[in-house]
């Protein structure tokens, strides 16, 4: 890859919008080209500074009352609010049928919400893997797991000493933030591929057994659930291998977070 090609792809690279193969090509180019490395670093810093300046400017902030009233205006009325007692008595057959539909709808709604929440978490995990483990491109520097345990969630400390499956050597263990979500992050290599184990508070959205979660990224994400934490295994390995790695980590993670 030439300097021109790399620089033309700087924006999508920094926004994590490229295919894994293209990203790897750029990373390889940056490893050997100090000028492009300086250029990319300058752009990354300018982006981060712009973002934090916009996010911190008091004059641009929404009034809390505005956000509250906006939420109130958008939120639909409670499902049961306008079912009157009279209507129920007069049309009990119809209402009974409707109740069945409502229960079905409720279950559907719950599953749909779980699915969407898990997809959001999985996309965050994929983004963290890409920006932290592969590109070292996070806006905020990772911190030691012990610090994260003291400040945010005691569970992170256990990842610092967690035993990995035999033959697997951790490259890094820390806590990092991607798009506002904090993760406990263990990076290791499997079959010469960089793999991330990411743990975050997840309200039990994933299933107990590892399962692949579709994301918009070219990376594979397998998720499973340990109590109040969601666990993600992210890699560019094939589906089967990613799932197998996740499977091998269930017990160690479960024991560490027990």
């Amino acid at each position, binding site marked *: 890859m030439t*300097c*021109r090609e790399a620089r*033309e792809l*700087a*924006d*999508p690279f920094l*926004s994590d919008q490229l295919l894994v193969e293209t990203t790897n090509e750029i990373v390889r180019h940056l490893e050997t080209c100090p*000028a492009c490395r*300086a*250029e990319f670093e*300058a752009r990354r*810093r*300018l*982006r981060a*500074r*712009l*973002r*934090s*300046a*916009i*996010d*911190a*400017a008091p*004059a*641009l*902030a*929404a*009034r809390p009352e*505005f*956000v509250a009233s*906006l*939420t109130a*205006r*958008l*939120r*639909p*009325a*409670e*499902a*049961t609010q*306008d079912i009157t007692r009279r209507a129920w008595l007069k049309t009990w057959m119809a209402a009974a049928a*409707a*109740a069945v*539909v409502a229960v079905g*709808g*409720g279950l*559907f*709604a719950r599953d*749909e*919400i779980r*699915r*969407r*929440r898990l*997809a*959001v978490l999985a*996309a965050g995990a994929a983004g963290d893997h890409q920006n932290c483990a592969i590109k070292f491109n996070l806006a905020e520097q990772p911190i030691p797991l012990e610090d994260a345990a003291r400040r945010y969630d005691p569970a992170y400390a256990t990842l610092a000493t967690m035993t990995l499956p035999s033959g697997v050597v951790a490259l890094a263990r820390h806590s990092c933030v991607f798009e*506002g979500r904090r993760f406990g992050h263990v990076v290791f290599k499997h079959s010469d591929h960089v793999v991330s184990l990411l743990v975050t508070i997840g309200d039990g959205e994933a299933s107990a057994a590892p399962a692949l979660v*579709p*994301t*918009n990224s070219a990376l594979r994400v397998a998720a499973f659930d340990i109590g109040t934490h969601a666990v993600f295994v992210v890699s560019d390995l094939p589906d089967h291998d990613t799932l197998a790695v996740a499977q091998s980590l269930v017990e160690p993670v479960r024991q560490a977070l027990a």
Partner: protein
Amino acid sequence: MKTPWTRVSEQATWQAFEAEAMPHVDRLFRLAMWLERDRTEAEDLVQETLAQALQSFHRYRPGTNCRAWLTTILQHVRANRLRARARAPIADAGVEERVANTIPFVPPVPDSLTDEDLLAALESIPAQHQEVILLCDVQEMTYKEIAAALGVPIGTVMSRLHRGRELLRNALTSRGIGSSQREVGQP
């Protein structure tokens, strides 16, 4: 009259919308404030954007960039509002700018630079260039998403970004920032 099914569906949509879209309200509002420079206008714009987004939430694909999706809606709503008010034209899509042949060098932003300096430099460049820089660097939208949001070709987005960054560099330099930086040559 709404059926129980409709109400349950509305609740489900709202809960998913609340989980995915509402966390972006703060940054969406900041963008609206930056573009409108008027709190009442910005609040109206964000409210209309969110109302439209909720109504068409079934079109949103989970796992994709929700902030970019909301920003695209905001830009469309804004364009319609401006057209309705018969203000200045939104996009000069007919005036194609040439994408420059060189990629500009971005000077490192020193830690001593305050947020106010940076925002003042951004504010000093033309609005259409501020807009693409914000959409690309702050909202992290793809060129394609920005083009769709602004209703201009991708080439125009790229050339505006190129020119915008050049102007931003000059604005930072004229404030005494980066004036001593030399252009980094390509190997």
